[in-house]
């Protein structure tokens, strides 16, 4: 297999400048054919700009993108026929029904998809004759995904497909994406959600301040960038905090008034609990020991403040 066929997308030294702002700074990476590639990064990190360059919507200041073996700068017409795009916050014509919307995009691509099958795949058949403006956020996203598939694309770009959706709607979208992966589609997923990336992605790239700071499988990134376990004790008694500090650790208060402390080994957890007992302090009512996850990798690499969305994601 040649490099161009094993890689659906090759981004090579890509940069994009807006006046004095360098939005994308010498970014290079490759996406394997048939994988789910998740692109993570805080707002303003250059995620959407990078993706929109790959989608041919924006032009790079420098660098090249090879998509399905074609340079996108010289093959835009062919490239757009072979990709499907769900833009961030997908919207469509308010008064047009779901079926009409999909037929419109099919006409644009000169493709003859089975609209009913597409609606079945995205669980939209019951809403076929509903106007777009009457749909809920989750249904609109699913229309966007279906619209991205009308031309049976080789690569599907999904920009934050579950942002703003309730947990049930998110799971439904995830099922659709898993179905696409099973059909051999390459999926380029831009997301804020660590949970989503861990659940779906084969490869994760983290972008910060316009540069790729880490790339690899979620497991490999977690293994490579974090060594310690995270112990959380509740309630966060001041005497316990002082005791743990005197043991040589660096505990911090959590937002729900607990104590969080990073420890290198399971023996350290046992040592802390024993010290609390020996000091005669009240035993913790809540105890949580977690292995490091992608979210901690993300935090460590981007230094961005987390704001829990209730979806295991960041805003």
């Amino acid at each position: 297999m040649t490099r161009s066929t094993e890689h659906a997308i090759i981004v090579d030294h890509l940069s994009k400048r807006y006046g004095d702002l360098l939005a994308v700074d010498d970014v290079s990476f490759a996406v394997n054919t048939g994988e789910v590639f998740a692109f993570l990064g805080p707002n303003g990190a250059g995620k959407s700009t990078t993706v929109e360059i790959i989608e041919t919507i924006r032009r790079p200041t420098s660098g090249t993108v090879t998509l399905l073996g074609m340079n996108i700068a010289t093959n835009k017409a062919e490239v757009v026929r072979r990709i499907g795009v769900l833009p961030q916050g997908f919207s469509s014509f308010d008064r047009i029904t779901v079926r009409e919307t999909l037929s419109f995009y099919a006409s644009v691509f000169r493709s003859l998809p089975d609209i009913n099958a597409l609606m079945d795949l995205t669980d939209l058949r019951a809403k076929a004759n509903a106007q777009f403006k009457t749909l809920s956020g989750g249904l609109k996203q699913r229309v966007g995904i279906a619209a991205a598939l009308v031309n049976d694309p080789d690569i599907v770009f999904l920009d934050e497909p579950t942002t703003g959706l309730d947990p049930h709607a998110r799971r439904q979208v995830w099922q659709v994406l898993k179905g696409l992966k099973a059909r051999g589609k390459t999926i380029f997923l831009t997301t804020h959600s660590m949970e989503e990336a861990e659940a779906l992605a084969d490869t994760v790239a983290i972008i910060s301040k316009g540069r790729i700071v880490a790339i690899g499988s979620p497991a490999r990134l977690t293994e490579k960038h974090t060594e310690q376990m995270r112990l959380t004790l509740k309630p966060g008694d001041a005497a316990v905090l002082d005791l743990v500090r005197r043991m040589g650790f660096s505990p911090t208060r959590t937002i729900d008034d607990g104590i969080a402390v990073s420890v290198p080994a399971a023996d350290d957890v046992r040592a802390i609990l024993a010290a609390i007992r020996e000091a005669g302090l009240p035993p913790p009512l809540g105890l949580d020991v977690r292995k490091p996850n992608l979210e901690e990798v993300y935090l460590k690499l981007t230094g961005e403040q987390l704001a829990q969305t209730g979806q295991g994601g960041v805003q």
Partner: protein
Amino acid sequence: MTPRITAAMLVVRVRSLYREPSALFFTFAFPIILVLVFGTIFTRPEHLNFELPVQDNSGSEASAMLLKALTTDNAFTIIPIPPDADPRLYARENKRNLLLVIPKDFQVLHNERALKLDGTASVPVTYVFDPSSTSLGTKLQLLNTIVAAANQRYSGTAAFITLKPVSILASTYRFIEFFVPGIIAMAIMTSSLSSALNMNAELKQKGILRKLAATPITRTDWLVSSILYQLILSVISTVAILLVSYFVFNVRLNIGTWLPLIVVVEVIAFVGIGMTLTPLAREAESASAVSNAVLFPMMFLSGTFFPVEMMPGFLQTFARFLPLYYVNEALRASMIFADCAGTLWSVAILAAFAAVAFVAGTVLTRWGE
């Protein structure tokens, strides 16, 4: 350009319109309302009638003759006011902008002049007026004409100079006939420019243009579908205006081959201008402000509501750089004067505007950046 894509977009636009009843209503109702309002005002100048309060302190046969002259041809309707009322106070309190005061000695002075006892005798009839009123000029003009005719009669000689009207037109046209082509031009301009601008801004704000940018749709497809859509609206509104004008005001104009051509060229010009202005309207909310800033000056400076000749010289020169001026000229030349050469000249200049606007609209439409 791909006809299939253009047709698909056209279908989406037409469906969106007929499923939005309020948009459908106002698209066609606005020009018809204008025709009805202005038609009602301008088709009945012969019934122009003003109320004129008069304080007749003379109460004589002579003053009665003057009052009769004022009501001739239904020019004024006399409103008598009490002799003891203060005329200025009365005018202010009753919101009257012109009031006439006939002096007590009107009959005496009339007799002196009429019986040639004193050939130089004259009588001051006072008029109290509100200079801030816009209709005052017309009323005074009418009053002066009636007073001049009365003086002519007192002089006892026939008028030396009389005016004889000869129209350059074969038929007699009323103002409404001149006005209707202007309304057609304005309706097409408003719809084409603001709709192109508003729709682009709305789709940009919603992110739909970003989705379209990642499809085989080209900017030319987009512009052509906008033009075809506006053409459909323009044909319907033009037919509606002409039908209402004909059935309500009996307006008869030359509807030849020029009219469809002018409509097509005007739509291309103003959709192109709308697309060109899109980069200035970053959000749907600012699109209305941008379109109004262009539409209103153009509407008033291009001879739609009043002749360009009424404006100061520099504005008349400025008007000749506005595309709507040439639409008005072309429509009036073809629909009223049946002047082929004049129509051709205006259409040629309009076509040049349209070509530039089309190219600029295509080049300046930015979907991704």
